[in-house]
């Protein structure tokens, strides 16, 4: 069986069940390591730390493979959730915040794009490229204050209270911006024909 033809869920089933030579995990790594590392780098702002988190994230994927439930979402969502959590934990451990917060935003409104890959030369799952472009476009349609809250929470790991203090706004305002922002993002993506399952 050519592993490259298997879906993420099928590969994960192999990782959990019979991946004695590690090839199924390698196939998933080929597809998503670049995106996961990009996420870690965006949050941590440190290449070495980002690579450490990447290794840890994929090790946990292997270690917890039996817990993956494709009914609850695609593998990429699971991987990104693990990766982001590891990053946020590391930030809290170091009492540090990523440089992304204090740098000018990129065109997608989600932070600096200093390490962008415009040529698309980094190997990764093909569906990630199309989804990435559409999510960036959708984010640009959000009101700036909503996009800012999404950015500070998702990539900065800040709490509602911390964001409120940072922006000088009531917590209720941050709550509303976060809620409306995520809902609008979802609706916009749906209108563009993008669903979370597209990451599969």
């Amino acid at each position, binding site marked *: 069986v050519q592993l490259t033809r298997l879906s993420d869920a099928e590969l994960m089933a192999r990782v959990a069940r019979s991946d004695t030579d590690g090839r199924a995990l390698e196939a998933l790594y080929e597809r998503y390591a670049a995106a996961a590392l990009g996420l870690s780098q*965006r949050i941590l702002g440190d290449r070495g730390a980002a690579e450490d988190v990447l290794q840890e994230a994929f090790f946990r994927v292997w270690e917890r493979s039996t817990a993956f439930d494709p009914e609850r*979402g695609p593998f990429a969502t699971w991987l990104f959730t693990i990766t982001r959590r590891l990053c946020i934990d590391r930030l809290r451990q170091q009492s540090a915040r990523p440089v992304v917060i204090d740098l000018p935003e990129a065109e997608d409104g989600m932070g600096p794009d200093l390490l962008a890959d415009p040529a698309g030369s980094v190997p990764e799952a093909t569906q990630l490229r199309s*989804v990435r472009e559409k999510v960036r476009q959708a984010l640009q349609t959000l009101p700036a204050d909503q996009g800012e809250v999404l950015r500070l929470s998702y*990539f900065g790991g800040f709490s509602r209270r911390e964001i409120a203090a940072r922006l000088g706004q009531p917590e209720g305002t941050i709550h509303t911006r976060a809620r409306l922002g995520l809902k609008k993002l979802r609706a916009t993506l749906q209108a563009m024909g993008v669903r*979370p399952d597209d990451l599969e």
Partner: protein
Amino acid sequence: MTPRFEHAAELVEEYALGLLDEAEAAWVVAHLEGCAECRALADEAQQTAALLATTAPPMEPSPETRDRLFERVRQARVVGQTRGRPAPLPRAPGSRQGARLPLPRFNPWPALAALNLGLAAALAVWGLALQTQVQTLSAQNQALSEQLRRQEVRLALVSQATAQVMDLAGTESAPGLGGRAYLDHNTGTVWVTLRGLPEVQADETLQLWLIRPDGPVSAGVFAAADGQGEVWLTGIDYLGEVSAVGVSREQTGGSPTPTDILAVGGPAG
């Protein structure tokens, strides 16, 4: 001022973004456990939030990271690390202060550091044990290889027509003794099997003889086990001169000439 919320559904987006404090997150988690409708909303919110991850520019990992990962997995697999079903995947990424899981929050780093030290020591011990095990297995492998080689030679000697066969019969000193010798003149190999060997005293031994026209030549001493014995000889360059094979009982260390002859035999048939 912290706002108050009437229903957990109002918080699923913030939960997915990890914006909630500990108390709020615990409240949401508790509600989700029993509310499929809100759980579906929370899953939706989390999947949408996870799409934000794709906006980060991809970066090609270093080969070292890849190597470390798969070496770590390989080692974990070797030591038989159990991959059980852990706590359920949190529905929200990066919630604050333990908001993601309905579990007590604790700082894992000191425990992990201690665990690392323990693991390092355990790995060192394990490494030594492995080294010993490898040496033992290597010795066992060599022994098995030798056994296999001998078995192949046995089969060859028994099956090939070129091997000369000599049947041994016991003398009055050992009437129950019998055996057979295979002599391969091409390779200079002799294989002798014996059964019904008498017990010997502590200061005695058994000795094998190859009998040539000019007299018996010692082929060495050997011991029996449960009345049975087996002798292998290789590199004998005078097999063409050997007309018979004999076994004697001698004092420990052997004798230059046979004294108490137990069995003797010449070419079979």
